[in-house]
């Protein structure tokens, strides 16, 4: 058995009354890829943040091997100590300065503050040596702002390796990548582990975990519930470990699509960036169908969602909902026309956190007679409506008169579902509806979308999770640079290539 390089011993961390990690122990061996698996909120990121010194554990210790292979205790709560011990972390959200080159980003922080001259030649030689061994290709001289997401991620990894990391932590590395880019990343990781690097990667995608890791550790509710060699693992067993029960598999039947419920004709949006731009888009959604919009984040999904939500006014083109043209799109006009909207960022756009659950359930319908009479709120009606919906949609929390920010992410999403589905919308926009949800809540969202489809609604499902789209959508359209391309194919390889813009 290869030697140990890292051992986490009984780490615990609480935030207020929430136990994020409870007595978690892990070991990592030299040259190994350990997948840290768990649902959102299971405590994966907290654990890694303790390892990296961002959080101070309430209990427990960490030992790291030094160059000679002896295990030494790590000073906790100090990122500098973690860096010095050879621990490198690549966060889900990159921490690169966009206006300077990759080379400068990589060397930034590892040079003495008051040095008179910088030895860029030696730095470049060292980085090129690392690139050679690992295969992590990235242009070094141009500003990072002009690099692609995949390249930026490689720069982040190079940054860690440049500081002689012997343990590399990758937090959800594939979330922003196309399937092909993800495959390349894992090839690079293999090359690096052959050189003796040890890797922990955090994920909730079972497929890649099974394909690329050596060992799997599963966290649930902050507790390590399992640890096994990947060769001995199967998808079902791990999924059960993650959720604690068999996940309800969403099943769907074929259905004939009905009349169009939404038509976009030549709709363009001129935005400040690519993510806010649509270029002369035609789109039709029919009753009884779920239309999946696949694409890498930031390719115009935002603009499309804003148009359907009524938040953006197209610079050209026409929007028809059922049979009427929406000439002056506003959120109010869209709601009245029968559009139900599930926003991408449920905390920012979905709810007013300081207001009560009951208030958030009626916030889109303040004009309704059930909600108000003569400008005054009908508080009893609002409350009984909320109680009914909370029961029907299983919104759990401290009650309907509590501020909605006290709800968990999954329950906030259920609140929004209740608000949207209660009024039987003819068209539903679901923008990243399961992002950040645990598997149980995500399955519930899928079930509700299918139910709406059965009832005769049309659904626009925007998602960066290709598996979700493949599982739910009747038709798939790929969005790339603000343009839509329909595909007959349900093959993930092919759709992945289209997402990357490499094939039509």
């Amino acid at each position, binding site marked *: 058995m290869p030697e140990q390089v890292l051992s986490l011993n009984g780490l615990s961390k609480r935030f*207020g*009354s929430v136990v994020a990690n409870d007595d978690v122990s892990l070991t990592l061996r030299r040259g190994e890829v350990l997948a840290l698996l768990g649902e959102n909120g299971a405590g994966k990121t907290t654990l890694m943040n303790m390892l990296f010194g961002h959080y*101070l*554990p*309430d*209990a427990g210790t960490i030992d790291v091997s030094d160059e000679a292979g002896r295990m030494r205790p790590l000073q906790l*709560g100090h990122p500098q100590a973690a860096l010095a011990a050879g621990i490198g972390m690549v966060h889900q959200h990159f921490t690169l300065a966009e206006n300077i080159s990759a080379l400068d980003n990589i060397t930034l922080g590892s040079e003495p503050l008051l040095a008179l001259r910088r030895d860029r030649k030696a730095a470049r030689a060292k980085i090129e040596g690392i690139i050679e061994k690992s295969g992590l290709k990235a242009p070094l001289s141009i500003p990072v702002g002009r690099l692609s997401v995949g390249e930026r991620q490689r720069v982040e990894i190079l940054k860690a390796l440049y500081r002689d990391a012997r343990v590399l932590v990758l937090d959800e590395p594939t979330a922003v990548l196309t399937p092909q880019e993800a495959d390349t990343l894992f090839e690079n990781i293999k090359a690096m582990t052959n050189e003796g690097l040890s890797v922990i990667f955090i994920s909730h995608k079972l497929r890649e975990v099974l394909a690329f890791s050596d060992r799997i550790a599963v966290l649930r509710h902050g507790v390590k519930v399992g640890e096994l060699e990947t060769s001995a693992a199967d998808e079902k067993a791990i999924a059960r470990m993650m959720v604690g029960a068999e996940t309800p598999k969403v099943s769907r039947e074929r259905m004939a699509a009905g009349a169009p419920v939404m038509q976009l004709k030549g709709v363009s949006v001129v935005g400040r960036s690519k993510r806010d731009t649509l270029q002369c888009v035609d789109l039709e959604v029919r009753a009884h169908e779920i239309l999946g919009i696949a694409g890498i984040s930031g390719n115009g999904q935002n603009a499309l969602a804003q148009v359907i*939500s*009524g*938040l953006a006014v197209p610079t050209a083109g026409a929007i028809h909902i059922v049979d009427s043209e929406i000439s002056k799109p*506003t*959120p*109010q006009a*869209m*709601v009245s026309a029968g559009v139900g*909207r599930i*926003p991408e960022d449920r905390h*920012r*756009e*979905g*709810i*007013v*956190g*300081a*207001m009560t659950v009951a*208030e958030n359930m009626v*916030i*889109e319908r*303040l004009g309704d007679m059930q*909600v*108000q009479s003569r*400008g*005054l*709120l009908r*508080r009893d009606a609002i409350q009984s409506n909320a109680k009914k919906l909370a029961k029907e949609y299983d919104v759990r929390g401290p009650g309907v008169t509590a501020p909605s920010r006290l709800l968990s992410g999954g329950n906030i999403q259920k609140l929004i579902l209740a608000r949207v589905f209660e009024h039987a919308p003819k068209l539903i926009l679901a923008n990243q509806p399961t992002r950040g949800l645990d598997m149980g809540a995500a399955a519930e969202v899928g079930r509700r979308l299918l139910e709406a489809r059965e009832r005769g609604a049309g659904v626009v499902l925007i998602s960066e999770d290709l598996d979700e789209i493949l599982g739910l959508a009747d038709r798939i359209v790929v969005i790339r640079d603000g343009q839509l391309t329909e595909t007959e194919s349900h093959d993930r390889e092919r759709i992945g290539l289209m997402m990357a813009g490499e094939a039509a």
Partner: protein
Amino acid sequence: MIRIEPRNSTSRAFALGIPILSAVVSLALAAIPLMLAGANPIVAYGEMIKGVFGSVFSISEMLTRATPLIFTGLAAALAFRAKLWNIGAEGQLYLGAMAAVAVGSGAFDVPGIILIPLIILLGAAAGAAGMAAPTYLKIRFGADEVVTTLLLNFIILIFLQMMLEGPLQDPMGLGWPQSAPVLDQGMLPPLVDRMRIHSGLIIALVAAGIAQFMLARSVWGFKLRAVGENAAAARHAGINVNRSLFGVAIISGGLAGLAGASEVAGLKGYLTADLSPGFGYTGIVVAMLAGLSPVGVVIAALFIASVFVGADSMSRAMGVSSFLADLVVSMSLLCVLVGGFVAKYRIIRADTGKAAR
């Protein structure tokens, strides 16, 4: 290392005890400069309490002082609830006061039953206009209202001086920069004979009551709260954010204008450039102390007016500098604000990882 975390819950006793404790601490702290100035703090505080609650007259003085603070406090509290930062209540107050003397000092010699409502309405309208303009600039061009409303205060003050030496100047005023007096029938009736307390207080209390009710119970208040707490979600839900902002701007400016009209037509009778000792700015403090609640504004305004009036009377009785009065006022405000912070957050010593209790 010290970290600050929000408290999960605040018990009722704790929420009530903190402000009282803060007030006591502030008095203890203010005792130090008092002693340095040679005054016995216990006697001084006795004088202070006597200065506020010692007689009907002193209570009337305190309530008279609280009246404009309730108006400006409401102006700030409502605007702040929508995250519209109206720092211009001082200027809006003077606009209201100018409108009050413009109509009230002889332009219309009509019976009081017509003149008083006219003064009140035009006073409010002038203040509303003073807030509507910067809000329009914010909505239309994204101009930061903190800057525009603050700077408008100075512009309005200079405009006031110009008016007081020009069109609004009292022809009988021997050249002093002051306006002609409001006609007798235009004055707000006093509440108690031979006291300064006037019916502006009733208007202020009614305004606070209406504001409280509308905020909690009306669709208007619902929208206002939603816009203030999360404008992105409000917009997504179909609430017209700009309309809500503009609506609250008009009400906020109107309340500040009422403060000016009520000071002129209820208390002073004429307008000078020192009508307000910073009521507009103190209104912001009142609103913050009140946690932006209209009923809280009334309580906070009474508290601040008590400290002002009491400290004033104490400095006169003890023969210490009147700056000490300002010091007592400032210290008690700081203490109450710190106390409010302690009530909301707790401080954690992070080196042990355990919460300090």
